[in-house]
């Protein structure tokens, strides 16, 4: 039986008078990777950002319902929403601190003051992000000196430090080379046993490699959703088929 962790009903997002998303109904299954695909400007990133209400920081207005384990996220404290539904952006956004401080920034806010526990947190999440061996001797180094791929893995590790249940990733590999992309994909496949992952990607091959479920969006509407194999091999909607064929060619 499917266990649904996050669900949207008639979700609409607008900026001023402009509607970006129209009545999106979708469910996200626990411990699965869901990839959101679609042409540029179709509202993928806006949809992702609405799931933990980050879109509101950009002036977006949400209507409709988003439920996290049966609770409407609009009724939950924003802090709780965002530490339960973590987010990783397209560009690796490391804070201008040391690697160590990047990873202890959030735990310290959430009340962890014990140095040895903070040290454990740093090691644990660096290992989980597959970065520990590369940086273990340079934890005091400014994080901005890491390579793009390392920075993105650090950002994912930082996101894990608040113990989220869901991780949203907005094209996390778009600025990375093949090797770093492979690193991230391997990590996401390992993480899905503990977390539910929703990823926006333009890379259909990537979606094929890692996603269990795929959502196709166009013009602010959800066109089709289903298991990755079905969406890629036998899409029902003609628009999905045309997009996949176009991207293949």
């Amino acid at each position, binding site marked *: 039986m499917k266990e649904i962790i996050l669900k949207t009903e008639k979700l609409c997002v607008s900026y001023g008078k402009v509607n970006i998303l129209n009545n999106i109904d979708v469910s996200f299954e626990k411990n699965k990777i869901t990839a959101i695909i679609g042409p540029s400007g179709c509202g993928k990133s806006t949809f992702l950002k609405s799931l*933990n209400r*980050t879109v509101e*920081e*950009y*002036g977006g207005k949400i209507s409709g319902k988003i439920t996290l384990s049966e609770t409407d996220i609009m009724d939950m404290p*924003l*802090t*709780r*929403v*965002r*530490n*339960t539904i*973590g*987010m990783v*952006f397209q*560009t690796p*956004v490391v*804070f*201008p*601190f*040391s690697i160590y401080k990047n990873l202890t*920034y*959030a735990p310290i*806010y959430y009340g962890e003051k014990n140095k040895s526990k903070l040290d454990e947190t740093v090691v644990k999440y660096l290992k989980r992000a597959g970065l520990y061996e590369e940086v273990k001797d340079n934890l005091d180094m*400014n994080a901005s000196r890491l390579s793009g791929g390392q920075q993105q893995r650090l*950002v994912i590790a*930082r*996101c894990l*430090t*608040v113990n989220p249940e869901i991780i949203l990733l907005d094209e996390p590999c778009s600025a990375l080379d093949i090797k770093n992309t492979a690193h991230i994909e391997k990590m996401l496949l390992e993480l899905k046993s503990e977390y539910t992952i929703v990823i926006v990607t333009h890379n259909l091959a990537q979606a094929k490699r890692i996603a269990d479920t795929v959502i196709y969006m166009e013009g602010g509407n959800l066109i089709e959703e289903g298991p990755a194999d079905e969406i890629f091999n036998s899409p029902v909607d003609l628009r999905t088929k045309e997009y996949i064929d176009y991207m293949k060619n």
Partner: protein
Amino acid sequence: MKMKDSLFKLWVLLSGSIVTAVAAGIFLYLFFKGFAVISPEFILGSPRGIPLGTEGGIFPAIAGSLMFGAIAGILGGALSLCTAVYLVFYCKNKKISSYILHALQCLAGIPSVVVGLFGYSFLIVGMRMPKSLLSASVTLTIMIIPFITIRIKKALEQTSEEQFIGSLSLGIPRGYTIVKLIIPSSFRYIMTSLSLGVVFAMGAAAPVMFTGAVIISGVPSSLSKPFMALPYHLYILVNEGLSVEMAYGTALVLMVIVLLINIICRLMGSFEDI
């Protein structure tokens, strides 16, 4: 096209060189003219002689200037930082934001002598405060607020919006994000803005002349006491024809203090914990 490009390069190089040469020229001119009177007695002594100020030193004026500079810096820095934070991170209404910016620009355009007159009529006459360190510092704070706020606002805007939202997306509220992430990230620029504001205040003669500075006094023992200030002392020495040599010495000391404040603020900025 290549010729035009070379001419443009030459023009910008010349402009840069002229600005540097003017700054260096002023400093060197004051150094050569004023160095002759610099002595331990000049730095650490009080004005003496007949007329007063033709002999002795300028220590009360140095102390007074540092004190009102520090107070104006603290008051102005705190108000400016909060205003800039409000404008950048909290004010979502563009109309309100433009009103505040417009008010700051108007304030920045008011001549210092008019700010001094306002300080005198509002604080000294209206509120019956004595001509004092506090009255002068408050008046100078009004003068430097737009100067610092606009610079800090620019510094905060340069901090990546993605960093700000990256922190919010961890469930961390705006206040904590601003205090622990944004301000430390912009600390160097904030300190530079503050130092420019403080030295601007320390060089202003007119506002302190109306609100607190006097021709002779000791080091002020409280905020309600009048004080001596370097720019006002310089004005008196020149305007009353007391001693041009002492005036050059005073100007050199003021210039060195300004330089030291800039250097200290830059060093503080470079020690930021990032």
